[in-house]
């Protein structure tokens, strides 16, 4: 019997290949976007983890210099001889590659995970010309070192590992160590750290790493995109499944009348759907791999430029990833088919075998109530919600509530259109459009979500860009930035700059804990540069004057939010010195807190911190001459960065971010367009009885087709009009709620009307393209078929 039932079930798909295609394609596309984004995130996380493992970050306690500088090699030996099991690490840039020097004899196992082919040779690593372990592509980028390059695929991307002795030589840092990795197991007897090496501090492992935290916002955007795409795909799948089940009601009734048990029947239908979901999932995962592989180089470039995070540009196939892709395809199908199976289970044996009018979205007061309820929940959470989870629930409620509101709002708008219509054709057009809304509503909801997501994410990314560029303008006010290797060079820099009539602004900073949180303390010289270019989020009157008199400090937003230090609160700057907060400034992308005091206070409190970095203010035309003069004094070209170069770099990074965003925009819109196409094709067959009378009354097939096309565009336009406020709401939620909860700073929201207009245009285009084929088919329907409607008794 099982076989008979199955063949009956499957015969439906043979007779309706388009439905089968819709089901598979919708699910596959949704899965593809979701799993593609997941693949990118997984690759990035794997790269961060490899970097953390290579450098011992996150899993081991570390000892660093309190002033953030280098640790003398003598301090390392002193610590070892005092019983501390610590291992030295020196790191720096060699060309574009991060070179990490370790001591293999003292490093805890697991540091510098390097594959060795059995002929591993400590002698070659430690002596002679030495060895450098890195990925093959990293080895190619290394400048000539004389050492033997050894390909090691498990080393973090863009990182090369070598012996500390060779690393010190290549980086020109003889006798210097950046940090010490503290072995988890220490001997019974050790002398205290502050007795052995004052000036060094031990930090506990953080169980994560800075890069991962810093890049979280970027990955959050990608994940949001992936999830929305999958939701759009589910709308398509739900539509296809509902339609198929509606059409199979007569068959189910017949099978049951022939004696097939209902439970058996439902179980087989579930198996059938699971098999289809599996196939679609496999296709989707394969497509997702293609999407991810295509996007990954741009994403990697973005992450490297924006955060200095090295992510491999090559995609690895991880089993967890493709399994989760299949799981989400199956789960999505179950969600989409649950309702259909449920209604089938409750169908009376003798119910009408006639397909009901295709009503997939139940309209009426229930939908309106659900929508209003969700929107109210979202609003309530926006006002009173706390925490990241509340932020996400708020986002979800907003999107689903908005989508559910679409059919009632469309019905209202169309009724208004009908009331204003003059003439029989116009009235029929509006009435017919209203009649079609139930059939199209799921596809239109998909379009609504796709557009809202695009508006929301584009707004967020663009707002971030504007804010960040403005922030760069304020932060990089000086025309040229110079770092000195030591105090004599610093003096030479000041002398040269003053000869060239440049204003010298020393950049003084120390790393300290403030209010129990890691923070940087900066000393700022009282100068018009700061007063003119810096903008505060909040400030007391005459903040700069008070700062200059040493009567307070400025805080970045992160410290203000995390430590709850509002204007006027006392900030412990140094032992015995607490000053009130005068102003709070935005500090985007910085994971730690920042405190600014005036230069005199800084020098009095931290006399050991020498000024080695300077901002030089000079007329823009003289930057080149100043660079040359400094170079003649022995300042390396790499120690000078001009403001224009940094800004150009930052902007090019944002352009790449936009490439990724735009690609995802187009993909989600394409999925929504596909949903519309499939709905229209499905409706086309059912609508013939409604169109035939209109045709018989004198409207040509061409005219009817043109009206169909127009109808699709009108519906898309109405949907787009609704998507805009929803998208802006989404953007606001991302910027003002999720961002603050996740990263500690709030981004101001900007609106980009031209972009929205273009996006609306794209949505209309997608809808028109989707309607084109059904319209063409309508205009070429043989008159005999239209006439046939009158012949058949329905």
């Amino acid at each position: 019997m099982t076989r008979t039932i199955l063949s009956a079930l499957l015969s439906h798909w043979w007779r309706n290949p388009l439905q089968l295609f819709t089901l598979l394609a919708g699910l596959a596309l949704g899965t593809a976007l979701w799993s593609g984004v997941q693949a990118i995130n997984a690759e990035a996380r794997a790269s961060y983890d490899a970097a953390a493992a290579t450098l011992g970050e996150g899993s081991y306690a570390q000892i660093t210099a309190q002033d953030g500088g280098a640790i003398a090699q003598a301090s390392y030996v002193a610590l070892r001889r005092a019983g501390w099991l610590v291992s030295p690490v020196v790191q720096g840039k060699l060309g574009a590659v991060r070179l990490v020097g370790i001591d293999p004899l003292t490093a805890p196992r697991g540091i510098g995970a390097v594959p060795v082919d059995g002929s591993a040779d400590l002698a070659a690593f430690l002596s002679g010309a030495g060895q450098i372990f890195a990925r093959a592509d990293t080895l190619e980028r290394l400048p000539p070192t004389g050492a033997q390059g050894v390909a090691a695929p498990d080393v973090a991307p863009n990182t090369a590992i070598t012996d500390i002795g060779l690393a010190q030589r290549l980086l020109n840092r003889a006798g210097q160590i950046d940090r010490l990795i503290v072995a988890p197991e220490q001997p019974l007897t050790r002398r205290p750290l502050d007795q052995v090496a004052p000036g060094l501090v031990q930090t506990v492992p953080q169980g994560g790493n800075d890069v991962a935290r810093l890049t979280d916002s970027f990955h959050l955007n990608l994940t949001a995109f992936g999830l929305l795409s999958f939701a759009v795909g589910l709308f398509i799948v739900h539509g296809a499944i509902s339609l198929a089940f509606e059409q199979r009601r007569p068959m189910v009734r017949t099978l049951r009348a022939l004696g097939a048990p209902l439970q058996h029947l439902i179980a087989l239908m579930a198996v059938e759907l699971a098999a289809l979901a599996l196939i679609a999932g496999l296709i989707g995962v394969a497509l997702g791999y293609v999407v991810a592989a295509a996007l990954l180089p741009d994403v990697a470039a973005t992450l490297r430029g924006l955060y200095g995070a090295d992510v491999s540009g090559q995609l690895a196939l991880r089993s967890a990833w493709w399994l989760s892709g299949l799981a989400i395809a199956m789960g999505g199908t179950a969600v989409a088919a649950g309702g259909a199976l449920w209604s089938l289970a409750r169908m009376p044996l003798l119910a009408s075998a006639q397909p009901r009018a295709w009503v997939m979205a139940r309209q009426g007061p229930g939908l309106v109530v659900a929508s209003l309820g969700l929107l109210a929940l979202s609003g309530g959470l926006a006002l009173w919600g706390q925490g990241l989870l509340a932020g996400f629930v708020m986002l979800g409620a907003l999107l689903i509530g908005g989508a559910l509101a679409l059919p009632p709002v469309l019905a209202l708008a169309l009724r208004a259109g009908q009331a204003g219509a003059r003439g029989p054709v116009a009235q029929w057009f509006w009435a017919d459009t209203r009649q079609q809304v139930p059939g199209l509503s799921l596809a239109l909801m998909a379009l609504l979500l796709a557009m809202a997501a695009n508006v929301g994410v584009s707004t967020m990314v663009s707002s971030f860009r504007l804010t960040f560029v403005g922030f760069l303008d304020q932060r990089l006010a000086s025309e040229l930035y110079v770092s000195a290797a030591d105090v004599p060079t610093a003096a030479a820099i000041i002398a040269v700059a003053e000869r060239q009539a440049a204003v010298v602004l020393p950049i003084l900073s120390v790393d300290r804990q403030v209010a129990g949180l890691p923070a940087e303390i900066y000393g700022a010289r009282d100068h018009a540069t700061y007063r003119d270019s810096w903008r505060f989020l909040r400030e007391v009157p005459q903040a700069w004057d008070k700062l200059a008199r040493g009567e307070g400090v400025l805080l970045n937003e992160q410290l203000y939010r995390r430590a709850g230090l509002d204007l006027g609160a006392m900030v412990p700057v140094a032992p015995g010195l607490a000053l009130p907060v005068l102003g709070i400034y935005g500090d985007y992308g910085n994971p730690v807190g920042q405190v600014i005091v005036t230069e005199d206070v800084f020098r009095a409190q931290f006399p050991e911190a020498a000024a080695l970095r300077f901002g030089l203010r000079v007329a823009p035309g003289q930057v080149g001459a100043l660079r040359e003069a400094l170079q003649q004094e022995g300042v390396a070209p790499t120690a000078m960065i001009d403001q224009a170069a940094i800004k150009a770099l930052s902007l090019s990074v944002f352009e790449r971010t936009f490439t990724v965003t735009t690609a995802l925009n187009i993909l989600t819109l394409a999925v929504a367009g596909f949903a519309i196409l499939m709905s229209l094709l499905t409706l086309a067959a059912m609508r013939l009885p409604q169109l035939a009378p209109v045709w018989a009354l004198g409207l040509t097939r061409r005219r009817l087709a043109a009206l169909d096309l127009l109808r699709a565009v009108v519906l898309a336009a109405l949907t787009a009009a609704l998507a805009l406020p929803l998208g802006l709401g989404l953007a606001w939620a991302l910027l003002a709620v999720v961002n603050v909860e996740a990263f500690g700073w709030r981004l101001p929201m900007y609106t980009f009307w031209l972009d929205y207009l273009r996006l609306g245009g794209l949505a209309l285009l997608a809808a028109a393209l989707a309607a084109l084929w059904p319209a063409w088919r309508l205009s070429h329907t043989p008159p005999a078929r239209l006439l046939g409607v009158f012949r058949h008794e329905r």
Partner: protein
Amino acid sequence: MNAKVLVLLALLPVQAMAQGFAGLGNDAGGFAIPQPDTVLQFPADHGAHPDYRIEWWYLTANLTGADGTPYGLQWTLFRSALAASDGQGWDTPQLWMGHAAVTTPTAHFVTERLARGGIGQAGVQAAPFSAWIDDWVMEGPDFNTMRLAASGPDFAYDVGLSATGPLVLHGQQGYSVKSASGQASHYYSQPFFDVAGTLTLPDGPVAVTGTAWLDREWSSQPLAADQTGWDWFSLSFDSGDKLMGFVLRGQPDYTAATWIAADGRTTAYPDGAFAATPLLREDVAGRKVPVQWQVRLADRGVDVTVTALNRAAWMATSVPYWEGPVTMTGSHGGVGYLEMTGYDG
């Protein structure tokens, strides 16, 4: 992911040290070779000989607590050179390895340290004498009066050493032949240390006294190609006499011994005079290791059964071996130390 070929870089020194020991049977490859006519010079020869491949400062002690509980103690500093040169900084090819252990009748504590030469983390200075790796030291104003200390995650010790007899040269004035084909090392001992100090064990500090035996040996290829390991005995008889004897296992075995009278006068015995036969093999750390031996030196009437104080005295270090205190019964009574290598396969 080819996990099979994944070896952590941190495991490299293990391999290299193993290669170093295995290398004992290899060519000298640019390193100095011990010569029979070399006259040892003190205190200079207490220091390191970087032109030889391998060298050790090897101290073992038989100790007793106030309640009569016997203890064993080991402090060893190995030097292994990747090339026959020295120098300052990270570039020196001299690598150092420290092993420390305390053996009780029921427990065996072991720990290990690795270090690079050239940066001050480990080394040996002849006079005033100092041998160190990290916080472990064997040092004093001269070779006769020294402080010995080491610590691990679960134990530590800090004891004083004072010599009550002269240095002892093995073989031919410190030239100790290790095979029939002539491989040899330079080898001398200070077997006459009195020890007093404190062991810190998980149950708390233990005051101990006893005797210690320090071996100094350096060479570049002391094993012949067919030799797979050695069984080395340092025995202190109740009479005050002492016996150093070893078996180098090969085809055939090669043995040598030094009889050390209570006043320090020595008699060297050639191959075949000393004999050691396993009586009982025990499963230790997954290997069959002899933990009871019959030891004979017919010329001195020695025929004793040597039994391990704790059979589980396995040194689970980069290069694993068995090293622990022993007791003697038979023709002579006494205590000593037994080292067995080459059972790790």
